[in-house]
């Protein structure tokens, strides 16, 4: 109602007006230690991953309880740790979920995915865990893991990966998982219709990515939306297509942190150009669909952005939550339609965002 009145007032004053929203927040839970992802449980409450390695159940009233989860090969340091928890499409029946994390040691690690089942009774535990994907090769250092995941309409799973920072050229090599988005079945098998099944990394679905931090399947448009971090500038919003090359590091709008050019080219033949690019970088982290719009949370940019599809193109509708002055790690819209946002700090919060 308030929005309709604002719109009418705007029309009366200016003749033409974009629909502007205002965003309110409500704190659901506090004191989460660098929360990374959230999943809304059908029985109420939420699962939240903390990068340090804990899986936490947050009740509707904000009380927290640790979920028993055993990941012996978890490697947590700097950007490495526990990443995304994603419920299976049939979670209500199967209790199945998948979890991405960094596995290995300081000098030999990469992104791994396990599947498991959440117990029916509280206190919750994740049982019957089993590895379904390990990104190869194992690499040195604790940077750029990607690790966002989404289910496609055919029940297969997309897992976004990173380039490991110092291995950027491997994003163009089809025998390495670094800098790729991979597609696997829920048991970890490689679907026969993957585009590069003849290579040493047959799980590859798309390549040329730097550090993917947002990935979502839009079933209404049958499209996959993704965003990834550029270095200094060149953060990208892309539509992911099977087998396509997204350019890193041979074509980019970003330059290296040192000021040096990573590549002289912003586009090249055979490379998909971004639908939208952020220069200077806002460090997008988390991507969600809400009423057909895209919501993008930002770390360095400390804001939530809303994009609307206009004439087949994503256009920035507005910036929100800048008043919080918080790095935002993730945005998620669950089955209930509520918008959830995680702030990125030692005293992180789980927020509900209400657009009016």
């Amino acid at each position: 109602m308030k929005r309709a009145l604002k719109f009418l007032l705007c029309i009366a004053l200016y003749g033409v007006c974009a629909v502007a929203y205002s965003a309110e927040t409500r704190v659901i839970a506090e004191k989460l230690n660098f929360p990374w992802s959230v999943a809304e449980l059908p029985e109420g409450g939420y699962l939240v991953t903390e990068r340090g390695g804990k899986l936490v159940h947050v009740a509707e009233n904000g009380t927290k309880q640790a979920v028993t989860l055993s990941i012996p090969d978890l490697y947590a340091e700097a950007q490495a740790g526990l990443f995304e928890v994603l419920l299976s499409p049939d979670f209500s029946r199967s209790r199945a979920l998948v979890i991405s994390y960094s596995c290995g040691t300081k000098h030999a690690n990469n992104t791994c995915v396990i599947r498991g089942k959440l117990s029916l009774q509280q206190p919750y535990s994740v049982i019957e865990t089993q590895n379904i994907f390990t990104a190869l090769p194992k690499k040195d250092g604790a940077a750029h893991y990607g690790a966002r995941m989404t289910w496609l309409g055919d029940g297969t799973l997309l897992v976004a990966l990173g380039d490991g920072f110092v291995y950027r050229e491997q994003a163009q090599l089809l025998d390495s998982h670094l800098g790729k988005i991979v597609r696997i079945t829920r048991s970890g098998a490689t679907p026969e219709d993957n585009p590069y099944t003849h290579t040493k990394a047959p799980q590859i679905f798309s390549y040329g990515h730097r550090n993917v931090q947002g990935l979502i399947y839009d079933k209404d448009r049958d499209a996959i939306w993704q965003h990834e971090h550029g270095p200094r500038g060149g953060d990208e919003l892309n539509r992911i297509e099977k087998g396509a090359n997204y350019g890193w590091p041979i074509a980019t709008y970003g330059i290296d942190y040192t000021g040096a050019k990573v590549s002289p080219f912003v586009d090249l033949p055979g490379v998909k150009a971004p639908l939208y690019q952020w220069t200077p970088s806002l460090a997008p982290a988390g991507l969600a669909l809400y009423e057909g719009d895209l919501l993008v949370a930002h770390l360095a940019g400390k804001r939530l952005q809303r994009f609307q599809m206009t004439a087949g193109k994503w256009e920035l509708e507005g910036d929100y939550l800048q008043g919080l002055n918080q790095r935002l790690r993730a945005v998620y819209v669950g089955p209930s339609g509520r918008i959830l946002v995680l702030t990125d700090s030692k005293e992180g919060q789980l927020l509900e965002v209400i657009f009016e």
Partner: protein
Amino acid sequence: MARVLIAFLIAIIGAALVGTVIQTQFNLSELTALSVVIDMPTRMNTILHDLLHFGPLFALILTPTLFVAFIVAALIAKKLPSLERWLFIVGGGVALAIAFLIVDSLAPMPTLIAANRSPLGFALMSITGAFAGWIFDRLWHPQPRELAEELMQ
């Protein structure tokens, strides 16, 4: 004193120019290895961009590093005057290599300068410190035969 300052300034600028061009070639060679064709105008434009945007950062790393290295070299050279030139050359190179390792241990990324990812790149970038040492001592304490060289034939 003015001679020392001018010599130091020229040494920093010389090393920053050479180091910048070296790192650009390493970055571009990684792209050509991926079958990207880079023509000469594009290569020259990239060098120019890097001189303007990478050069100042590299000069910022070089300045404190060589300041300390050259003081140490000068002190040792008092005891071993016959080795002065080599003390500045070796001192500049070793100090820059150590500075790279320190910067990489402090920076959030494993390797700040992409060219330093390979042993050859690390060695060549470090040698720019040795080049700075040579320039500095050549200007500060030119040897008699160097003074005898005619500037223009």
